[in-house]
C-alpha cells in the first residue's frame, strides 16, 4: 500500500565513531501537521527486525543538535523544533550496528499536542537496506 513518504530512503545507515560502528541511524518526518517543540514528544519507540531499542539508547537530532528522549522533555528552543515537513534524525546506540542487507523498521511517534484529548500515536513502518 503506497503512502506518503515518512522515512528518508537515503537516511538508513550505520554510525561510526573512531573506527567502530556504534549504532544505526534513520530519518523521518513528524506525522503531525505543524512544527512543535521537542518537549511534546512523549516517546519515540524503535523496533528493527523484531527487536525493541531501549529508550536510553535512542538519540534525536534536529538542526544539528542531539538530545536524549529524557532531555527532549525540556527542549522548547525555537531553533530545535521538529519542523513540519522536515526530517529528524534518530540514532540508536547498538554495538556493531545493523548487518548489511535488508531490514524492517517499526517506529512509533508519540506526540502530545496540548489541545488534543488523546496523544497521537503514529506507527511508521518500512523496509530498508544497509549497504
Amino acid at each position, binding site marked *: 500500500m503506497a503512502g506518503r513518504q515518512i522515512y528518508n530512503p537515503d537516511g538508513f545507515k550505520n554510525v561510526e565513531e573512531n573506527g567502530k560502528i556504534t549504532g544505526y541511524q534513520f530519518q523521518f518526518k513528524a506525522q503531525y501537521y505543524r*512544527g*512543535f517543540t521537542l518537549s511534546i514528544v512523549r516517546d519515540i519507540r524503535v523496533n528493527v527486525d523484531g527487536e525493541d531499542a531501549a529508550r536510553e539508547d535512542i538519540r534525536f537530532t534536529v538542526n544539528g543538535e542531539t538530545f536524549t528522549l529524557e532531555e527532549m522533555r525540556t527542549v522548547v528552543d525555537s531553533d530545535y523544533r521538529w519542523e513540519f*515537513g*522536515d526530517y529528524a534524525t534518530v540514532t540508536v546506540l547498538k554495538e556493531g550496528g545493523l548487518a548489511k542487507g535488508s531490514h524492517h523498521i517499526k517506529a512509533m511517534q508519540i506526540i502530545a499536542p496540548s489541545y488534543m484529548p488523546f496523544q497521537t500515536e503514529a506507527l511508521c513502518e518500512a523496509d530498508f537496506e544497509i549497504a
Partner: protein
Amino acid sequence: MNCRYRQAASLQMQAVTNIKEEQIMSYDIKRSVSLYSYQDEYYDGKLDLEGCLRETAKTGATGVELLAEQMIRRFPLPIETQEFRDQWFEWLKKYNLEPSCYDAFLENKIYDNRTLSLGEQINMMKRDLRLASMLGFKNLRTLVSTPMDVIEGSLDYAAEVDVKIGLEVHAPFSLNSGWADGYMEMIHKTGTKHFGFIPDMGIFCKNIPDVLRDKARRQGASEECIKIVDDAYAERLAKGFVKIKYDLNLGKANMEYRMANGMKEMMDAVEKAGGGPADMAYAGASFTYSWSEPQDLIDNIDYIFHTHAKFYNVHEDYVETAVAIPEVVEAFKKAGYKGFLSSEYEGGEHLRDVGVDSIEQVRRHQEAMRRAIEG
C-alpha cells in the same frame, strides 16, 4: 444548565425579524483559504509558503489564513524580523490577498509535568496576539480547548493590538449549548468587542465523509459494520446530538460525550458483527463529525467574525460529501454575515495511500462556495 442567553437571543430574534429580512441583502461574504489545506503538498516539498499563497490566489479567494507554526520554521523568530515581515507583506500585495485569520496553538502542556499557570498561558496568548498583529491579521483563532480565564485575561491586550480572539467551534462542540453559554456569559460580563466565535463547518456534517468510508473499505472494513456506523450517525442526526460539556479535562469531556451519544452500543454492535481493526477505527472516527443546526449561526451572528469552511471531499460536480454548504451559506446570508469563509481541506489524511490533490480540492471548494454565495 444556564440557557438564559439563548432565550434572550431568541427573543431578540423575534423582535427584529423584520429588520433581519432587510439584512439578507446586507451580507458581505468573502472567500479565504487556510494554508492548512495544502499540508500534504507542503509536507512533500511540492509547495513552500509562497507557493501556497500563489495557489490560494489562483482560486479567486481574496483572503489567506495562516498557521504560523506550520509553515514558518523556527517559530516565532522570523516573525520578529523586519526582513520576514517585509517579505510577507510583499507576497500579500503580489497575490492580492488579505490576512483573514492567524491560527494559534496554545501549548499549555508544553511541559509534561504540569499545565502552564494562568499567567503563563495568558502570556502565550498575548505573544500570539502580538505576532498576529505584526503580520496584519485582525483575527486570531484560539482552539476549542482554550480555558475561559485565559481568554478573559487576554482581552485588554487584544483590544490594545486590535486583534479579535475567535474561539473555534469545532466538532463535537456547537453553538447554542451549555458549553457556548459559558463563553457568552463572559462576553456579556466584560462587554468585550474582541472575543467571539469561529464556527468550523465540520459541525454541519449531514453524514460521515465518503473519503473516510472508502479508506475503511480499503483497510478491510465490512459493509455490515460500515452500515452499523452510518446508521448510528443518522440516528444521532435524527435524535439530535447530546452536546459536549465544558471541561478542562478534554479526554474526560470527549469520552462522556461519546458515551452519551451511544458509542458503547454502536461499538458492541460492530464487535458482534465481527468487526476488526478497520471497522473499529471507522466507528471511533465517526464521533469526530457532528451535526448542528445552521440556525445557530443566525442566532449567534453578532459574535461570529470568521469561519473555518471545513470540507472533506468536493466531487467534480462541486458537491461536497458531508458538509451542508448550501444550507450553511444560506444561513450566513440570512444573518447578514460580514466576514470570510476560509477553506479548510481535511480530506487528504484519508487519501494518503492513494494520492492527495489538495490544490484541486481547494479549487473545487472555492468554486462550490462561490456558487452558494452568488447563487
